[in-house]
């Protein structure tokens, strides 16, 4: 089927793609292309259990991989695309709080940080999959950074999904995935959460005439 070296190579490739998608999301400003990148990231995420399943000859991970593929590369991005507005100003992340160059530098920094903080995890189980975990961890930090720095409601939703993707990726890499019931529950929660965010985005557009999160400053002390 697949040798260990091939498996490790495939794993590196998918995780690399996963991280690359995150970096590109930081770079791009067009909302629709961000969502598309997110779908690609979902695909990369699905590739992790798929590769493992093929490598081990185990049907379980393959099923999980297919579900993840449908959900993260299909359903969720589609849900989000619905929420992308039609107005011109609504389609772009025109003025993020941190400019692109700085964003990319910060992303680089966060990636290095991820390598530093994941040492205990690798130390516990230095398998090929675990060795890839810093990349997944880096995406966690990048996702949080995206949420902090983007002004569009949709961008934040994308950030949230990216965060979720990266945690799932970490789970796949270090444990081969959490127990099924937890995985199902978590996925359901994420689905609903994204649904809620989508509904809220459209309500926001109706009520505020836009999705700039800077408008949400009425509630304070």
């Amino acid at each position, binding site marked *: 089927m697949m040798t260990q070296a091939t498996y490790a190579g495939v794993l590196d490739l998918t995780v690399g793609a996963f991280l690359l998608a995150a970096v590109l999301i930081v770079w791009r400003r067009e909302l629709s292309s961000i969502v598309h990148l997110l779908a690609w990231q979902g695909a990369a995420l699905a590739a992790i259990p798929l590769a493992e399943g093929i490598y081990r000859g185990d049907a379980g991970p393959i099923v999980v991989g297919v579900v993840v593929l449908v959900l993260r590369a299909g359903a969720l991005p589609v849900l989000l695309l619905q929420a992308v507005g039609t107005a011109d100003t609504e389609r772009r992340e025109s003025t993020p709080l941190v400019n692109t160059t700085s964003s990319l530098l910060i992303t680089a920094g966060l990636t290095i940080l991820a390598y530093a*903080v994941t040492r*205990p995890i690798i130390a516990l189980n230095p398998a090929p999959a675990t060795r890839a975990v810093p990349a997944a961890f880096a995406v966690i930090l990048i996702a*949080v*950074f995206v*949420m*902090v720095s983007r*002004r569009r409601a949709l961008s934040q939703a994308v950030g949230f999904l990216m965060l979720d993707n990266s945690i799932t990726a970490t789970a796949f890499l270090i444990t081969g995935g959490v127990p099924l019931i937890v995985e199902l529950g978590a996925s359901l929660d994420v689905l609903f959460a994204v649904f809620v965010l989508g509904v809220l985005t459209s309500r926001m557009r109706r009520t505020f005439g836009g999705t700039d999160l800077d408008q949400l*400053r009425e509630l*304070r*002390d």
Partner: protein
Amino acid sequence: MALHFSPAVPELGEGPRAAQRTRSARLSGGLTAALGAVGLALGLSVIFGAPRHLQIAWLLPLVGTRFELDPVSGVFIAVTGAVSISVGIYSVGYAQRERWARVPMAVLPLFVAAMLLVPAAGSVTTFLLVWELMAAASLILVLSEHRREAVRSAGIFYAIMTQLGFAMILLALVVLSAASNSDAFTAIAAHAGNLSPGTRATVFLLTVLGFGSKAGLLPLHAWLPRAHPEAPSPVSSLMSAAMVNMGIYGIIRIDLQILGPGPRWWGLALMILGGVSAVFGVLQASVATDLKRLLAYSTTENMGLITLALGAAALLSSSGAPKVAAIALTAALLHVLAHAAFKTLAFLAAGSVLTATGLRDLDKLGGLARRMPVTTVMFGIGALGASGLPLGAGFVSEWLLLQSLIHSPHDGNTLLALAMPLSVGAVALTTGLGIAAMVKAFGVGFLARPRSGAAENAREAPLSMRAGMVVAATACAVFAIWPALLGPALRHVLAALSTVGGHAAGPQLGTYLRLPGVAGSLAPALLAASLLASVLVALGLSRWGARHRPAPVLAPLWASGSDALSPRMQYTATSFAEPLQRVFDNVLRPDTDVEVTHFAESQYLVEKVTYRTRQADPVEQRLYPPVVRAVTAMAQAVRRAHNGSIHLYLTYGAIGLLIVLLVAQ
């Protein structure tokens, strides 16, 4: 300061509601007095009988309650009970006249019950529970007239400060209880000797501040002159005559009995705290023009004297003079009792004046002696007690205090050589200014001619209010003339306080008060009798030649040359106190401003001169605003950090995440 309370507006359907109110007032007052009587009886039975204890495990979740009674609790329970009897009777009439709502009527007996339980508490947790119950009940009572803005602000001030004091006491007591690994006072006392000096000092300082706040001692006294005047008068009486004693009780129980005997600086610290509070309180009282505020500051003064006496007892006891310490301790206890009597009476009388005239401002009172003779006599007895003059309730205890101060050992000890004379000076200044304050209150408030229409139309208080005052007046008379009656009880209490010299033979309170070890005596009853005799002799002397005189006549007073004497020509309380205010200008720092308006034609001609003066509390003005400013600055800084931006909020989360990732390595 003008304080004018409009009498309550008559309500429609007066008949049934009034009858209802009468019933409620009788029930509430009767219950209060009955609780007081129970407290008095219980207190006395504990003083003379065996200690009792009671444990209720289910009451108060996780903690349970424990009550223990010994003679020290007994004396404080008894005095609270006695005050409550008087106040309970009085409040029957007061509640009707002032149209009290149901809430204060219901809470009044609860307040008394809580106060009676405080000295009975036998464990840290129980003590804190009843302490806070007492505070909460008193707060509700202070707020009874919450529709007035002044009452609300006083209530809030009171609530916050009492909570601050409570926090200090709580901290100190739980640390104490944790350090000795026990909750019960008896067990803590057994372990207290093993505590580290640092813990003991911390607990001492925190409790003295916290209890001092309840007793109205500096620097956390500022609630007292606000809340006591704004509370309804029976409540003021209970607070000023009974509740403040709980602060003293706390100092005695925790600092002197359980933690004691402490190092010498404890006694000195108490003396300084007491002396400064006494002088400060009396200075404020002597320039106050609000009758109830004056009495409230007088409470600070008297609590200061009591604390000074306690400090002297501790210092003398640790300086190897237990007999003299016992005199100081007796002085403190006796003054607690005497103060309770005369302050109850004074506040109740002030309450009668308030119900009759709606006034507390001495500058608008006057001429009540003819209109409210009983109240006037009652206030006179109370004021005489407060001024510490012979025949007054406070005289014997102040005399004992002075005796203990002048009989400290002369062994070349610098500390004593400085502390004792300065204390005598402080006590003397306090007494002197106290006399001035009380002369002002009585002379300006009750004598002379009315300074306002409200005072002009005052009428005497109803029977129950007078009866309540008579009870307190009787107690005053006992303290002034026959303190021997208290001798046996005080002996028992003293014996329970061995850490501050209580084991030594205390002063003998008989017809003659004799002091052990030193020559000195006083016979209040004989003094009173001989004074009466000599006054009669003097009156007889003025009859000399009466046969040759024409019949007595009434004559108008001299109106300084004008046609008729108007009440506006009289000295007011403000003008009466003006010399003192000028003498103590540096301490009191009154806000004075003089505004001169000139005629438009010439600036040499004055049309009008406006003189305004306001006496604020200088300690409060110096000490509290910085604290408030600091808290507000902190709050504003935090507020600016919560500006509503979700990006900022998520940044906080991200920072938290980074910190966790780095720290958890």
